[in-house]
């Protein structure tokens, strides 16, 4: 497989995952603002923008936090080069670049989804059809992932697809958790303090985790168990631990196919160790924020090592 094609596949799935998570973040934020005071709504939108790393870019264009403005900026604004539509465009461009490595099913899923989104986002999104657009983003990602699962050979290409998906997912979960925790910090002491459960509900919804979490914890909401769930639960497909176990498996597949390990395997083992040897108590002792920042940086080094070990660019 060409290094450039591997890069195309890796990034195609990263952008898809990123678009999906961004849509979910907007969905949760929008839901939150519907049931809160105006002050809280502003705070919520600000936190959405912070999570996406878009806050300062947004503030150079708007001086309010109206939901319509935030959603338009995040979804489609030309002032924001990292908008969701352009993420999907990049996912599709990468799919075109790697067209010979994906099946017709996968191509059609991503291409049709992109065509639908392009039409939906041709005009500013109104609150009345916001959910339609966000649902379409999630659907495109879901359909493509499903077509991938159902039609692609389990070979090198598949491994790069999975690596892209789960590397991005781990990054996004960590970021969401970090921003929410950071914002809540002043009003929060570690164990047992009654929390604004609405805020935590948003965190869970942003990760499609509310149902699973509630089911496992019979409605109990506290920072410790939510962090435990999102970081360490190996049954939850968006947790850091789960994402890393998928990455580990796929890197092992690559090592087997290529008849040897590379630098990234070392990094992966080290990261695994940092994750597996800890309990949620250790994480809180260290400081959740510090833990997550370290995790995000480690995740980035793994991405860089994948690119250089598998000759994405040179």
């Amino acid at each position, binding site marked *: 497989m060409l290094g450039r094609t591997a890069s195309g596949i890796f990034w195609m799935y990263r952008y898809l995952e990123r678009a999906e998570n961004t849509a979910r973040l907007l969905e949760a934020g929008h839901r939150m603002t519907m049931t809160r005071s105006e002050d809280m709504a502003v705070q919520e939108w600000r936190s959405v923008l912070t999570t996406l790393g878009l806050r300062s870019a947004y503030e150079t264009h708007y001086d309010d936090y109206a939901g319509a403005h935030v959603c338009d900026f995040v979804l489609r604004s030309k002032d924001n080069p990292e908008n969701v539509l352009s993420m999907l465009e990049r996912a599709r461009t990468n799919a075109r670049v790697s067209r010979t490595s994906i099946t017709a099913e996968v191509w059609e899923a991503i*291409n049709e989804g992109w065509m639908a989104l392009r039409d939906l986002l041709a005009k500013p999104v109104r609150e009345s059809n916001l959910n339609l657009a966000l649902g379409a983003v999630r659907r495109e990602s879901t359909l493509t992932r499903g077509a991938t699962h159902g039609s692609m050979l389990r070979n090198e290409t598949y491994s790069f697809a999975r690596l892209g998906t789960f590397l991005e997912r781990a990054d996004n979960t960590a970021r969401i958790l970090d921003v929410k925790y950071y914002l809540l910090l002043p009003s929060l002491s570690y164990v047992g303090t009654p929390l604004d459960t609405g805020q935590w509900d948003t965190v869970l919804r942003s990760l499609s985790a509310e149902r699973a979490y509630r089911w496992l914890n019979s409605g109990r909401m506290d920072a410790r168990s939510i962090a435990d769930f999102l970081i360490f639960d190996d049954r939850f497909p968006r947790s850091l631990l789960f994402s890393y176990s998928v990455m580990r498996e796929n890197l092992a597949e690559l090592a087997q196919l290529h008849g040897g390990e590379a630098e990234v395997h070392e990094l992966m083992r080290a990261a695994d160790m940092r994750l597996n040897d800890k309990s949620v108590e250790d994480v809180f002792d260290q400081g959740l924020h510090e833990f997550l920042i370290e995790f995000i940086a480690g995740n980035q080094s793994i991405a860089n090592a994948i690119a250089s070990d598998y*000759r994405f660019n040179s």
Partner: protein
Amino acid sequence: MTASEKQHFDEMHAPDGSVREAYRGYQDWLSGQEDGMMRRKTLEAESFFRKTGITFNVYGEDDAEERLIPFDMVPRIITGGEWRRLSKGIDQRVRALNAFMHDLYHRQEIIRSGRLPERLFRNNSAWLPQMVGFTPPGGVYTHITGIDLVRTGPDEFMVLEDNARTPSGVSYMLENRETMMAMFPELFSKVKVLPVSDYPRRLAKSLAACAPEGASDKPTIAVLTPGIYNSAYYEHAFLADQMGAELVEGSDLRVVDGKVQMRTTVGFKPVDVLYRRVDDDFLDPLTFNSESMLGVPGIMDVYRAGGITIANAPGTGISDDKAIYSFMPDIVEFYTGEKALLPNVDTWRCADPDSLKYVLDNLAELVVKEVHGSGGYGMLIGPTSSKKEIKEFRAKLEADPGNYIAQPTLSLSTCPIFTKKGLAPRHVDLRPFVLCSPDGVDITPGGLTRVALKKGSLVVNSSQGGGTKDSWVLDD
């Protein structure tokens, strides 16, 4: 009288309105269909193309939007007998072209014999001095050729152009058939049509047969594309996919240890046969255009040392030249010892003063083309042009006559297309795709039919609003 008012040969209907032999089975089926069926199917086909991503980028458009090539649902049908006669002519022509290339880059017997003036290639940028004295693996220059044919009567097929550079459109030939079979399965069980779907396999086999000496039994084939912004990217990806070959860009290739190698996830791996879809000029920045980012530095050295097959061979573009074209009947006779089975369209070379005078006197009746032009650009179609356009073109022609040839405005055959008002005749041409290897010449039955969608228009190029049709050769 303009081109559209003349009486044209129609592929489907005889002048008395009866249905010609080739279309009898189709007509039987069509007359049994309910009203509105074709319109519904047209919409279905369009959505099929959009989602599969069969698109075409138009040169010179700013937003590089992916456009669909319009597809018409009425097939262009040729009988088995007609095809057998045609393919003999095509086979002969492609063999002659290949021999001609070899001769031009070796002893140049055709020039010594006085049949072809030396100036035609001496000042021609498509003629590459780097190829002189070098024989490509298997002696093959024109691995893939597209011969553009036009028809003016029941038995009158003529060659309009030879495309020996990097002819495109074969993916449309394949996808048009797939679409038709998906839309009208019952039609194909009723009318027996020779299949085209094995073209990619035949291409892979033909390319493998041209692998350089020392390559393994299963040579590594790669398709070299300029990238996703190229107008034919879809086709490059499609062919690579169908052949099971790698789709590479220049940046993936590098000369390592005297071989052209591609950068894979486990290191560099040699390529034996490169089916390149970039022009000669961009192939090797060390040899040709030094600004090129699309090619591979040093590939020409490897090529000349016999380390890789490049298809088509560099320097074959000279046979696309329209001035060379005008000599094709002589060229065919010179190398095959037989009269050309497929005639040329009459051609005036404007470099010749007598011809130039005739052309200038008759501009309003003629089609004038640039010698090196392609894609329907930079040409004048006298009968459909305004006085002002003709006047402007006359100035260009007088300034550089050697750059032009002229041909009569042909009475191109028509074939019905489906319009809102029912079937209506439109002008068509036909581009069969021809493979050449040491094992022989291999022609896939049919080819790509291009159709001018505007009433009366003679320009079928997809970059100028032309469409395509599925092209059938009957299994009779």
